[in-house]
């Protein structure tokens, strides 16, 4: 037994040494991975990042889009900062990447991470998810306008709850829509509650509005415990329950918030490497298998190439930066 494990260790060491030659760049603008690819989900198992990364990897393997093995590694911490710092240390090794979303813009802006999206190579965006603002089923508001009118008059009476910390996604997605509706955003009361506490606080009336993702509300809406006042998508979503949710735009509030999710590699990847991944992700995005996954989770298709993604992120950064500054949350 002992011998066996020693042999195993030795083989593992051999593999690890063999893998060290992964840093070679593209030849004639062409590149292919030379070993297993590690995708970091900078949060725990079962969350949005983890689910997206796992389902993309699953399609890549099942449809033979990528020949090498794909491993998902969970690196939770700091709202993503721990995972980002890890991939940042893997410069010159294009076999590492992570899945990112708006916190990658928010968290550097409010000073909780020194590393931001500019420190990575955007590879491709895959999907769009949207925010939903939910209240208890017996709450007095039936749409966003009623809520916001009330907030304009009595901002001290309305508590918004979310999972992320102030200045990050759950908070700012609400702020963005509220601002467009003319609410004084510096007076919004926001509490952060982890470990499933946010939904509890809506159900027991300690907080009034739950700012969260669309998917997180479906089950409780179907059970008649909460109602969704509005979502942040451009258009109505499809799906049995999802199609009932009115968008903010439909209610005359001219603002949207996209929870984009895509993949980022370490800084300094060359053109051949970017091209390889862009194409692989495009193939996933266009596949029938991934279409089914999108429908299952209520995600929308939102493929962007590396170049498009970079421009999009710059826009987001400028827009959200202004919003955070107005809230006094920038560093």
């Amino acid at each position, binding site marked *: 037994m002992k011998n066996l494990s020693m042999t195993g260790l030795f083989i593992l060491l051999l593999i690890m040494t063999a893998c060290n030659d992964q840093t070679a760049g593209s030849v004639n603008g062409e590149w292919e991975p030379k070993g297993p690819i590690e995708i970091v989900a900078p949060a725990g*198992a*079962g969350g949005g990042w983890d689910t997206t990364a796992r389902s993309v990897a699953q399609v890549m393997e099942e449809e033979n889009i990528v020949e090498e093995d794909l491993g998902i590694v969970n690196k939770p*911490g*700091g709202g993503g900062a721990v995972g980002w710092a890890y991939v940042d240390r893997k410069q010159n090794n294009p076999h590492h990447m992570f899945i990112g979303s708006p916190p990658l813009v928010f968290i550097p802006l409010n000073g*909780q991470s020194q590393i931001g999206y500019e420190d990575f190579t955007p590879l491709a965006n895959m999907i769009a998810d949207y925010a939903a603002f939910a209240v208890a089923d017996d709450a007095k508001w039936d749409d966003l306008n009623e809520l916001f009118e009330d907030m304009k008059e009595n901002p001290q009476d309305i508590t918004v709850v979310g999972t992320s910390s102030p200045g990050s996604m759950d908070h700012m997605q609400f702020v963005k829509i509220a601002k467009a509706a003319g609410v004084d955003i510096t007076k919004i009361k926001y*509490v952060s509650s982890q*470990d*499933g506490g946010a939904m*509890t606080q809506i159900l027991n009336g300690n907080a009034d509005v739950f700012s969260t993702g669309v998917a997180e509300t479906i089950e409780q809406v179907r059970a008649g415990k909460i109602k969704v006042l509005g979502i942040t998508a451009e258009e109505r979503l499809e799906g049995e329950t999802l199609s009932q949710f009115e968008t903010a735009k439909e209610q005359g509030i001219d603002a949207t918030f996209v929870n984009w999710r895509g993949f980022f590699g370490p800084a300094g990847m060359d053109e051949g490497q970017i091209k390889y991944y862009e194409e692989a992700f495009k193939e996933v995005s266009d596949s029938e298998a991934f279409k089914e996954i999108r429908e*299952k989770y209520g995600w929308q298709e939102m493929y962007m190439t590396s170049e498009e993604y970079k421009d999009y992120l710059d826009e987001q950064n400028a827009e959200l930066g202004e919003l955070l500054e107005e809230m006094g949350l920038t560093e």
Partner: protein
Amino acid sequence: MGGLDGLLQGFQVAFSIEGILFVFIGVFIGTFIGMMPGLGPISAIAIMIPITYGMEPTTALVMMAGVYYGAVFGGSTASILLNAPGISGTVATAFDGYPMAQRGEAGKALAIAAVSSFVGGTISVVLLMLFAPALAQVAVTFGPPEYFALMFMGLTAISSLSEGSTIKALISATLGFVFVTVGIDGQTGTPRFTFNNPNLLEGIDFLVIALGLFALAEVCFLIVNRKDTSLSDKANVGSTKLSKADLKEMSGPMSRQSFLGFVLGVLPGAGATIASFIGYITEKKIAKKPEEFGKGSIKGLSAPETANNAATSGAFVPLLSLGIPGSGTTAVMLGAFLVLGIQPGPLLVQDHPDIFWGIIASMYVGNIILLVLNLPLIPYISKLLKIPRPLLISLVIIFSLIGVYSVSFNIFHLYVLLFFGVIGYLMRLTSFPAAPFILAFILGGMMEQSLRQALTASNGSYMVFITEPISLALLLISVLSFAVPVIRGRLRTRQ
């Protein structure tokens, strides 16, 4: 709603050959991983998630539930034998379990833990079966003011956990509060005491503190005193037989803590840890000989073990009937559900009665298997203590390191672990008790966040803690538990 039909369907799942087989696999793996010092249900479930890919959801979830409560069942072993708790729920088990093992009664201690776990687990499954959908309402009655009051009540336990100097106990608890503030503050998003080190953003994991202050401090102590012969004769395992008197002594804590533990388990965020501490404290408060607690008391071991297993069943209430994970472990468990395409929530019992009732019914089977599996193994498991001391110490160190790494996947936290090992040893040398430190650390984080959530929602008015009846009741109990002994003492001196 056809509750009875559902339950029958559940038993059909649980008593099918496949059901029993996978419950067995689940609890076996769970109890095995749980026994490893430093490894608890989080690691056990996380290890098992990839295995469930492509499995039939009911079988997979019955198995995963087995892994969960199996790991809690087995978790007491490392606490009792090595003073190395693998989860926060078994820290209180070490208070009396380890001294008992040191006294040469390891076999008996493990048997007490196994029987208490079994009773706590089984009674709570009955409660779960009868009241799960109804109790979902109870789970959401607790808002920030109530949680603050509950944590406050937990803190009054510091007085019961202090051996000797109360001042030292308070200093120790203050240190616990200090260290729990490290990391990103939930309410403002500001990093506190992280010194620009991204590794500290998430704060310090409970396990790091527990293994440092308990396991590594003990290891330091054993290494320093290795020449002391009085310590070297601990290989005596003793009998695993429980006498009638023992069982009688356990019956009180077991019957009370099965209920109390279950109710505390239902509250998201409270869970097994707080249940085990409160179980320990209440038993100490009502015991006829409270001075025996902390020195290997049967009641002191039985109470937390019953409570933490009962709380584990309780934690399934918010998970299954609300889709709300109440702890880190149930959050991973929720992940396991989602991976299989099952969304737990208020509709689970209607949409998937086979899963809902199957899990509950399988817990009866699981608890019986655990008892049958564990009792005969006790003599062999406790032989662990016969491993030569130098080897055993090395193993404890290695498992502590593995345990921390398997939770954080971060080398930095191993250094933090060693740091707390040294702190724990220094505290022992200067006779500062470690238990108040750990209690303050467990309760402090949630207490602070609840306090601030409550005050934000109330626009800064402290009245919320008094106007909410549950909160008021809990605060009154805390004040009384402090005041009554003092007043009684005064009256006595006057006479």
